[in-house]
């Protein structure tokens, strides 16, 4: 795909993720994807803006809302759908599913469905990079919910203490399932992270991939040269229910107004000309990936006990 400028490229990538997620919504009632799905709709721009400046050799660690990062980091779309379908050709051979995507070939180091559990892995990867004199950098992505967990604090402290080449990215959608940050945290995320001696940054425009890219790429160059940790909180908005393919605006735990004002700023909902320009080729790619998943074979009994040890 040829792009006129970086904006188009970022738009294309973000729109691809949105359309992939919408395809999942469309497929879900057929029961072909037999697993819980934590959709990234509304949060795609964060993943795209973060991953743009990262190299294939740079590593990223994610969580169970990981579709957007897998794709933004360059994970294969066919293997993605095959994994969701539970097929043999999936990126994890059907054993991981939506919550546990992984693609080492592009530096997508796996996703865990235990909140905050991959943050220390990212710190460990940064420790290895430092000790082995590698020049790649590590990104740890987590939600505002992970900030509640003790292991997050222990990991931040270690990264700062040992001066490791890592960027912490807090995707703040203000929600852990249905609980707002104000109901869970008595502190300010950035003030607190800053107290570990890690420089902190804030991006309020998580719907705007160019702004996320602008801020994040500076951090990437910073860490490439200094090899010291950085921290960024990016405000974002989850459009769908926590898990599943529906909206739940009537559930009463958050403000519909706030979601609507976010949607009004979302380029993927408003820039009709670009959507029309790119949609056909993206949909074609998605159709091919879905066909690949459909045509692939199931894992068999002989696969059940492989890769245990």
């Amino acid at each position, binding site marked *: 795909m040829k792009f006129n400028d970086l904006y188009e490229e970022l738009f294309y990538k973000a729109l691809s993720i949105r359309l992939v997620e919408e395809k999942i919504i469309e497929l879900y009632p057929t029961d072909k994807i037999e697993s*819980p799905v934590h959709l990234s709709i509304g949060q795609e721009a964060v993943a795209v803006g973060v991953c743009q400046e990262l190299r294939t050799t740079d590593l990223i660690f994610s969580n169970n809302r990981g579709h957007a990062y897998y794709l933004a980091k360059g994970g294969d779309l066919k293997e993605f759908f095959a994994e969701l379908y539970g097929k043999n050709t*999936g990126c994890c051979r059907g*054993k991981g*599913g939506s919550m*546990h995507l992984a693609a080492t070939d592009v530096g997508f180091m796996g996703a865990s469905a235990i*909140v905050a559990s991959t943050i220390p892995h990212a710190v460990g990867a940064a420790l290895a990079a430092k000790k082995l004199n590698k020049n790649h950098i590590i990104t740890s992505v987590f939600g505002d919910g992970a900030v509640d967990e003790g292991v997050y604090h222990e990991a931040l402290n270690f990264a700062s203490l040992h001066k490791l080449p890592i960027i912490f990215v807090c995707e703040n959608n203000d929600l852990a399932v249905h609980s707002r940050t104000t109901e869970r*945290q008595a502190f300010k995320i950035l003030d607190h992270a800053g107290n570990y001696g890690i420089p902190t940054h804030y991006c309020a425009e998580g719907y705007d991939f160019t702004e996320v890219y602008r801020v994040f790429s500076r951090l990437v160059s910073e860490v490439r040269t200094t090899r010291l940790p950085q921290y960024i909180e990016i405000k974002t908005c989850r459009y769908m229910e926590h*898990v599943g393919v529906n909206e739940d605006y009537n559930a009463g735990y958050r403000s519909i107004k706030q979601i609507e004002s976010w949607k009004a700023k979302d380029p993927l909902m408003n820039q009709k000309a670009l959507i029309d320009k790119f949609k056909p080729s993206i949909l074609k790619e998605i159709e091919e990936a879905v066909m690949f998943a459909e045509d692939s074979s*199931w894992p068999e009994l002989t696969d059940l006990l492989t890769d245990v040890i």
Partner: protein
Amino acid sequence: MNSLIDKFSGSVLSYREALFHAMDDALSGNPKVIIMGQGVTDHKGLFGTTLNFSSKYGRDRVLDTPLAEEALAGIALGASLNGLYPINTHMRVDFSLCCMNQVVNLIAKYKYMSGGQFECPMLIRMVIGRSWGQGAQHSQSLQSFFAHVPGLTVIMPSHSDSILKDYHYIVHSYRAPVISIEHRLLYDVKFNIEQNSVYSNDDPLSSHLVRNGNDVTIVATSIMVLEALRAAQYLSTNAGLECEVIDLNCVSHPDKEMIMNSVEKTGRLIIADTSWQAYGVCAEVCRIVCEKAPSLLKVPVLTLGMQPATCPTAKTLEDYFYPNLQTLTGAIARIVSGKTNHGIPLPDEHSMADAYKKFRGPF
């Protein structure tokens, strides 16, 4: 003692409804009871089991919590030592691993290592997930981890009666920490509440003989009790075999005499657990029989549980991973006939989850 069963006897309650009423009974019956857990105040109310309690009993008694499992378990301990009765909840057993330190090193030991100065009664509820791609970290069944540790009482209710009876007793009368491991697939199963069932007549925190038979003893936990009963029914109708089924219920303190009496009668033993066989309930029940009277067994024991792997997400693999009605009836037919080619026609059911209302969330 049986006030909850008395109250609902004659009615039909789903497992979920029984949990709701047990929580309601806990909060209304004792002002010191508090419930702390993720999502207990939201519109889903922990799968409907704490729905609207924060408005009914106040947000200072029904607390949504930060994602801080270890601290919460410790906070429950501190609160319990000082007069509150905490009920701490985990939407999945898997998440409770984050608080293992507090549970194993502190909660289980606080009374003993203080020479009995302290008691820390509390209830920790956790839910086993299964089917619809729960996968590696939303499906584990870790009763043996907890039951291994002296100081913890671990139950796995398989019936609404068990919940009504045991929870009422635990919250209002039992002075030690209890871990209750519930099963997500049971939540929508409906049960008749009866005043004179084994559940209402037996002691709380014990095992229950739920079916009489002479051919084989099946000791089962949680949803495997229902599976054992389905298999027993099938074989009774189709092959004239009669299985005796024991609902272990209190896995940390099972009724050993009940198990031995049954094995003495049948001479054959199958253990069907929701977890891995190695080092778990299957192994423990074997230990009980081997230490007491192994010669009662006419044939080697058979065990059923999860395959020795991480739970895979793909449905095809998940169906191989868990036992189903076919594997269970096959095992029974084999052990009773003593032959692999027993000639008993087996039911054509490869996915147990399909037999329950197909579970596809909410999670």
